[in-house]
C-alpha cells in the first residue's frame, strides 16, 4: 500500500488504534445480536429465523420513544436512551412470550420445523412493522452525548456510540452469564434444556421456563435493536440483514457455550475488520465466511464444546 508509506508514523499509529477499535465495535455488534440467539438456538435448539425481526421491534420501540421525547418532552432527550433500552427489552420480551405460547411451544424437538414456521413469523412481523410504521427508514434522535467522538489526541477519534455499544455488550454478557450460571433461574433453564421431562419430575415448571427463556432471548434481541439505532437505520427489513451473521456467530462459537459465542464474535469481528482494511468490504466478508465454514468442517462442534460423556 503506497498510501501507508506516504503517511507519517504517528498517523499510522492512530489509524491502527482506530482500526482496532473498529474491530471491537463490530465485536460488540455481533455479540449483542448473538446473545439472544445463543439462548434460543444454543440452549433451546429453536432455529428462530424471526430473530432479526425481534431486533427490528426493539429498534422501532426506541425510534418511537425518541420521537415522543422530541415532540413532547425535548428536555428529556439526553436521558431517554436507557429507558428506551428497557422498553425495547420489555416489548420484545412480551412479544416473544406470546410467540412461544402461540407457536414455538408446539415445535420443540422439531428444530427444522421451527425454522420454517419462524420464517413465516418473520414475514408476518416484517409486514406488521411495514403497515404500522411505513416502509421508509426511520431513525432515532440520539442524545447529544452519544454522538460524535472522543478525541484524546489530534487525529485519533474513538466513536462514542462504539464505546457505548461495547460497554453495553459487556454488561449484557455479564448479566446473561450471571443469570444462566449463577442464578437459580439459570439452573432451571439448563436443567430443562437438557431433559425436559426429568426437569419437570424434580419440580421445575418447565413450561414456564420455556416461555420465559424464549421471551428472554427475544428481549435480548430487542436490546440489540435499541442499541443498533445508534449506528444504523430502522426499517422493517433491517433485521433480516443480520440473521445469517448471527447464526454463523452462534454456530461457530459452539452452540451451547456462552464463552464460545463471545470468542467467536471476537474472532469473526476482528478478522473481518482487519481484512476490510486491507482488502475491500465484499472480499473481507467472503473470506471470513469461507474461513468460518472451513473451520466448522474441521471442528463441527464449534470453538467451545462441552465435553461430557452422555
Amino acid at each position: 500500500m503506497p498510501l501507508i508509506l506516504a503517511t507519517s508514523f504517528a498517523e499510522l499509529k492512530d489509524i491502527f488504534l482506530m482500526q482496532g477499535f473498529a474491530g471491537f465495535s463490530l465485536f460488540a455488534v455481533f455479540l449483542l445480536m448473538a446473545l439472544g440467539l445463543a439462548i434460543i438456538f444454543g440452549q433451546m435448539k429453536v432455529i428462530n429465523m424471526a430473530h432479526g425481526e425481534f431486533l427490528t421491534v426493539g429498534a422501532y420501540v426506541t425510534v418511537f420513544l425518541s420521537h415522543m421525547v422530541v415532540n413532547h418532552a425535548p428536555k428529556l432527550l439526553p436521558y431517554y436512551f436507557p429507558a428506551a433500552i428497557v422498553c425495547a427489552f420489555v416489548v420484545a420480551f412480551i412479544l416473544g412470550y406470546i410467540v412461544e405460547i402461540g407457536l414455538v411451544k408446539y415445535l420443540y424437538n422439531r428444530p427444522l420445523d421451527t425454522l420454517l414456521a419462524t420464517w413465516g413469523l418473520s414475514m408476518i412481523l416484517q409486514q406488521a412493522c411495514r403497515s404500522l410504521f411505513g416502509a421508509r427508514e426511520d431513525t432515532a434522535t440520539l442524545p447529544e452525548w452519544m454522538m460524535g467522538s472522543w478525541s484524546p489526541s489530534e487525529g485519533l477519534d474513538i466513536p462514542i456510540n462504539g464505546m457505548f455499544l461495547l460497554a453495553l455488550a459487556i454488561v449484557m454478557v455479564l448479566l446473561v452469564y450471571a443469570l444462566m450460571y449463577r442464578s437459580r433461574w439459570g439452573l432451571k433453564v439448563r436443567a430443562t434444556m437438557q431433559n425436559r421431562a426429568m426437569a419437570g419430575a424434580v419440580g421445575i415448571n418447565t413450561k414456564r421456563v420455556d416461555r420465559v427463556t424464549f421471551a428472554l432471548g427475544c428481549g435480548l434481541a430487542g436490546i440489540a435493536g435499541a442499541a443498533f439505532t445508534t449506528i444504523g437505520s430502522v426499517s422493517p427489513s433491517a433485521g433480516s440483514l443480520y440473521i445469517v451473521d448471527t447464526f454463523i456467530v452462534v454456530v461457530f462459537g459452539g452452540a451451547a457455550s456462552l464463552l464460545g459465542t463471545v470468542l467467536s464474535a471476537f474472532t469473526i469481528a476482528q478478522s473481518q475488520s482487519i481484512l476490510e482494511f486491507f482488502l475491500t468490504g465484499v472480499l473481507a466478508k467472503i473470506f471470513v465466511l469461507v474461513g468460518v465454514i472451513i473451520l466448522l468442517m474441521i471442528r463441527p462442534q464449534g470453538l467451545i464444546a462441552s465435553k461430557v460423556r452422555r
Partner: protein
Amino acid sequence: MHTLYNRALGGRSGTVGLALLCVLLFLIFPLALDNFRLNMMSKYLSYAFVAIGLVLCWGNGGILSLGQGLFWGFGGYCMAAFLKLEAARNIAAESGSDQIRALTTVGLPDFMDWNQITSLPYIWYPFKSFSLTILLVFVVPTLLAYIIGTAMFRRRVGGVYFALITQALCWIMEISFVTRQGWTGGINGITDLRTCLGWDIRTKSAQIILYFLTCGLLIGCILIGRFILSSKLGRILVAMRDGEDRVRFSGYSVSKLKTFIFCVAAAMSALGGALFALNVGFMSPKLVTIEPSIYMVIFCAVGGRNSLIGAVYGAILVSYGKTYFSEMFPNLWYFLMGGVFILVTRFFPDGLAGAVDYLGPMLGRKLFSWIGRAQANFPAAVVPIPVEANEGR
C-alpha cells in the same frame, strides 16, 4: 418389465398418483390456462425440480439443505450464459436501437460492455457450445455438491449445522456473483435472453413447447426419484435418517451415500434452474440466495417432505399462492404467506401428502359407503370403484 413397473411407477397406487399428475400437467393446465399463466406454470414447475431433490435428500435422507438455490443458480447461470452469448452474437440483428448497436461489441454480453470488459473472459468460453453447456449444467452443480457433501459428511456435519452452513454458502455465492459483475452481470443478473440455437424462446409457441419439455423432464425426475427410493439405497436412506450409526456398522459408508443423494438432489435442482432460464429468459443472483432457498424447502414441506408427487403440488401451490396473494393484496400478502407457513408446520407436519394420507382413506370410506348405498338403490347399475388408490402410500 414388472419390476420396472413396481420400482419406477411405484405399483398401482403410485401409478394412479402419477397418472393424475400427468393429466393435470399435460391436459388440464394447457387447456385451462392462457399463454401467460402457462408460462408462469413452467416457472413454478422449474422450482418443483428442487422440491423433488429435497424430498430425496431431506424427506428420505434426513439432510436438510438450505442451499439448494446454489445448485439451482449454477444450473441456471450456466444455461443463461449460453443463451446470453447467443443473444450477444445476434445483437446486430436483434437490437432495437442504433446507438446500442453501435456501442455493443458483437459476441460480448451487454453487461460486459458496461463494465469495460473488452474480451470474453475464459470461463465463458465453454458456454459457446450448446452440448458443453448442457454438460456443465449438470457437472458444475453436481461437482460442487460432491465437494461440499464429501467435506461435510466426512466430518459428520449434519442436521441443523448442515442447514446453516449451506445457507451461508448460498450467501457467499450471492455476494461473489454480485461483486464480480463484469463476469456475472452483478446484481442485475443475466437478462434479456432471446434465442436458443436460433429458436426464439420468447414466442408463444416456444413457451408452450418449453412447458411440455419442463413437464416431461419433471415426470422423468419423479421416475428417477421413485427408482432410487424403491431400491435398497432408498431403504438405506430411510434407515440412515432414523439411525445413522447402525447403517455405518452394517458396513455402509454413510458419507458416500449421503453425498450421492445430495448430488442427485443438486443435479435435479440444476436442471430446474436451467429450465427456469429457458422459460423465463432471465437469471438473477436474487434467485440464488437465502430467501428462495428457504422457499424451496417450504415447497417441499407444504407438499409433504416424503412425497415426490406432493413436492410438485407443493411447488405449484405455494408459488401460485405467492402470485395470487401478491396480485390481490400487494400490500398485505406477506401476512397471508407467513400465515400459511406457520399453519402448515403447525398442523400438517407431513404437508399435503400427509393430509391426503390422513383424509384420503376417510373420504374413501365415505365414498365407499355412498357407493354402497347407491348400489342398494340401483342394484346392478354401479360397479364399485376401487378405493385403495390412496392406501399403501
